[in-house]
């Protein structure tokens, strides 16, 4: 029982107060508050659920997939060219320790920020 915690020293002369509090607490715990429409009232006050049709998610997925496949056929080799050019530009840069360190710090900051954002609590 919390009120008999040895850290909270109670004077033996205050036993009457302990009894009084215990009686009132027992009475409090025995009192059942009848629902009397309370639950129904709470449920009617809840915000309305988002009214999205069931087909919305698969339809959006299918549209994105179609767009992706279309882009892959419309731009043959484009992704490969862009990657190759980016790598060539990067490789042409003179490398220094401070440059590598700065790049690592930048990647670290972006990664941790992204992780923190993804794990944030609402």
């Amino acid at each position, binding site marked *: 029982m*919390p009120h008999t915690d040895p850290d909270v020293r109670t004077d033996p002369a205050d036993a009457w107060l302990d009894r009084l509090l215990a009686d*009132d607490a027992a009475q409090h715990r025995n009192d059942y508050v009848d629902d009397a429409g309370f639950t129904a009232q709470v449920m009617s006050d809840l915000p309305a659920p988002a009214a999205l049709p069931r087909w919305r998610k698969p339809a959006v997925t299918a549209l994105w997939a179609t767009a992706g496949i279309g882009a892959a056929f419309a731009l043959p080799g484009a992704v490969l060219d862009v990657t190759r050019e980016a790598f060539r530009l990067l490789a042409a840069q003179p490398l220094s320790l401070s440059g590598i360190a700065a790049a690592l710090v930048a990647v670290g900051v972006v990664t941790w920020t992204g992780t923190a954002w993804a794990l944030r609590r609402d």
Partner: protein
Amino acid sequence: MASPPAVTDAQLIARCQVADDRHAFAELVRRHQSAVRACLRKLTAGNHALADDLAQETFLLAWRNLRGFRQDARFSTWLYRIATNCWLAHARKRREELLGDRDADVVADDDDADGGDSTHTDHARAASLRIDMERALGSLTEAERAAIVQCYHNDLSHEEAAYVLDCPVGTVKTHIFRARQKLKHVLAAWNPAG
């Protein structure tokens, strides 16, 4: 002895978190409404209408924040925490009105109690104790009252009360110590040693 429910609170909470299951939430409200409303009635010193309004607000907030509930405390303790915060926010905003309402309610209850028979039965003693205790709780600061209600009436440990009140355990003990000193004075008439 009542048999344990077929579906546990944890299962109902999971259904709410995963599938926004409103039927599961309704069952949780049905199970806990009595305890939450009774707790708020104590905190508001017997103002039933205000207690029920705050209980409504408590369950709406619980629904909105249920996804963030990690079950690191009992669901009932989490609800007490929300309820206590709702009451504290309301009390801060409308302190003057709250005191006025409480005094009026206590006076009305006094009239009812005095109107009956004068024999000192257990029932009469219980009713009398309830009225005096409500008045006594009203003499405490909000933090002291909340600590007494959580530790004595809701039977929470000091650690659980600290979670509900969002303060260190030592602060809860201090609030209880101070509250007891005040209650001793206000309820002196109940001391058989006189």
